[in-house]
């Protein structure tokens, strides 16, 4: 039994369609709460309109925002999945689905050659759509998450040092808000993703995934990270720089931090903000043909974050990378 390409094409189109149109429930509820508690009348007027917009997009089945972002995929493969045609066929199906969704869902053709600016008209091009992969040690399935994210404002990177401490991380997040919430360039109330540590590119990748692939209200399993999430959330709230850059009680919908082990001398940090047009949709396809759609990408797994692994022991640490229990035939062709 294998996941068929025909099925992948249908499902990949469908996650793009759903992502473009429907604000996920966790985010919509967050915007409703923000509107309900807002004390600045003009900010409330706008937040009410954002909630209404989410309703109308679903009612009319039209994209929630006129900038339909850059369609991209996050793919997670269980180690026991079998794909008809393998991963090259999967990628082909994912690209085709973006081109089809562009025409049929009426996405804006945002992807252009960065120098000539030529627009192929289907959101497909060089490294477009981008596709990121992760793996799980068990599972006879593959998960496809479509994310459409705007790309101009709300992200920044900085190399900090141990001497900057967590206050340095906090200050950098406030700097990012001061830069991109002014006049509302980043379209707040945003979901803030903070990538801390790792390599420069890793922390940026993690910040994007933290913003786009975790539900509002979710907290990191590491209590140290979870506490930092709460503290940064409180600090962001304190800025009062919210929707359209207006003084507002809810500048951010949530803050999600992800960590990766860093160079002993540095703390690279990146911030990615996800705007009020929250666009993500996930489907899981099983070897036996079943398909499940859901709004929670469940991207960050215990395996990915090395939860429960004794990282101080070389043997145990290595075991996490090559689980002894993994059957040999589970490798993917």
């Amino acid at each position: 039994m294998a996941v068929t390409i025909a099925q992948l094409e249908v499902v990949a189109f469908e996650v793009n369609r759903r992502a473009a149109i429907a604000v996920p429930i966790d985010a919509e509820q967050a915007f409703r709460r923000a509107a309900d508690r807002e004390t600045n009348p003009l900010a409330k007027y706008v937040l009410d309109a954002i909630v209404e917009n989410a309703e109308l997009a679903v009612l009319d089945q039209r994209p929630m925002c006129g900038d339909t972002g850059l369609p991209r995929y996050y793919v997670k493969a269980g180690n026991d999945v079998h794909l008809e045609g393998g991963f090259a066929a999967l990628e082909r199906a994912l690209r085709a689905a973006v081109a089809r969704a562009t025409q049929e869902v009426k996405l804006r053709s945002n992807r252009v050659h960065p120098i000539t600016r030529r627009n192929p008209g289907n959101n497909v091009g060089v490294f477009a759509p981008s596709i990121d992969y992760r793996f799980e040690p068990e599972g006879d399935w593959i998960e496809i998450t479509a994310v459409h994210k705007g790309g101009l404002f709300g992200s920044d990177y900085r190399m900090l040092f141990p001497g900057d401490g967590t206050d340095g991380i906090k200050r950098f997040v406030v700097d990012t808000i001061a830069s991109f919430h002014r006049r509302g360039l980043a379209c707040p109330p945003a979901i803030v993703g903070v990538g801390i540590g790792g390599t420069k590119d890793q922390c940026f990748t993690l910040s994007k995934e933290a913003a786009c692939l975790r539900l509002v209200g979710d907290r990191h399993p590491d209590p140290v990270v979870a506490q930092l999430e709460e503290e940064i959330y409180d600090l962001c709230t304190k800025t009062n720089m919210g929707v359209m850059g207006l003084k507002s009680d809810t500048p951010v919908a949530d803050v999600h931090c992800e960590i990766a082990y860093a160079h002993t001398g540095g703390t690279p940090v990146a911030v990615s903000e996800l705007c009020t047009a929250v666009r993500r949709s996930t489907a899981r396809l099983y070897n036996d043909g079943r398909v499940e759609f859901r709004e929670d990408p469940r991207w960050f797994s215990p395996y990915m974050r090395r939860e429960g692994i004794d990282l101080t022991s070389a043997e145990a640490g290595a075991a996490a990378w090559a689980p002894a229990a993994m059957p040999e035939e589970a490798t993917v062709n």
Partner: protein
Amino acid sequence: MSTTADESQDVGAAGVRELHLNIPLTEADIRQLRIGDVVYLSGPIFTARDGVYGYMLGQGHEPPIDIRNECNVTIQSAPAGVEVRPGEFEVASLQATAGFRYGQWMEPLCSRYGIRAVIGKGGMSEDVYRDVFKKYGVVCLSTMGYGLGAIYGRAVKRVRAVYWKEQLGISEALWVLEVERLGPLMVEGDADGNSFFSAHAHEVDEPLMAAYEGLPAPLLSRLGEVRDPTKELI
């Protein structure tokens, strides 16, 4: 066409003054607008962003529409829309892009073509309002919330034409859209050169600066924070 006959104004939720105007806008239409007002527009508008500004104002290609007399409102945008059949276009959703980066084009746009309103996201600099918009009688309207694409898309009743698609690509082309009650749009820059965001900067800055309290400056600076590239960053 008379625009004043259909004008109406209400005080909507939150005490916001709402006005309904028809395009083409008259000078009187836009002179009555104050920063913070909310406007709904009906009539033809045209899209322009990097591509159209460069092609029309930079390279001097004359627009194929009568902007001054018929279509004197522009939106800094291209819609989420497609060519459903050759030459036939449909729009699903609409939202403006951040207009600050188009300030350099406002003088030729307003002086040559009789624009009365520019719709963008988040407005432009006060210099543009003072030096250009005040001189020619133009207002800057901002889309609101910035993610109201479905609401604005609903207001697009028909795509009249798409020009320069071959030259600029579909997402930089000049779209002429017939809109009905396109809004809410906030008056960000009025015809006297005032900016809503500038006028409210103080109330925004106060809590922002309070959030910085106790947070030290980073050990390593960046160019940008230090504007002189010959300065040490450490």
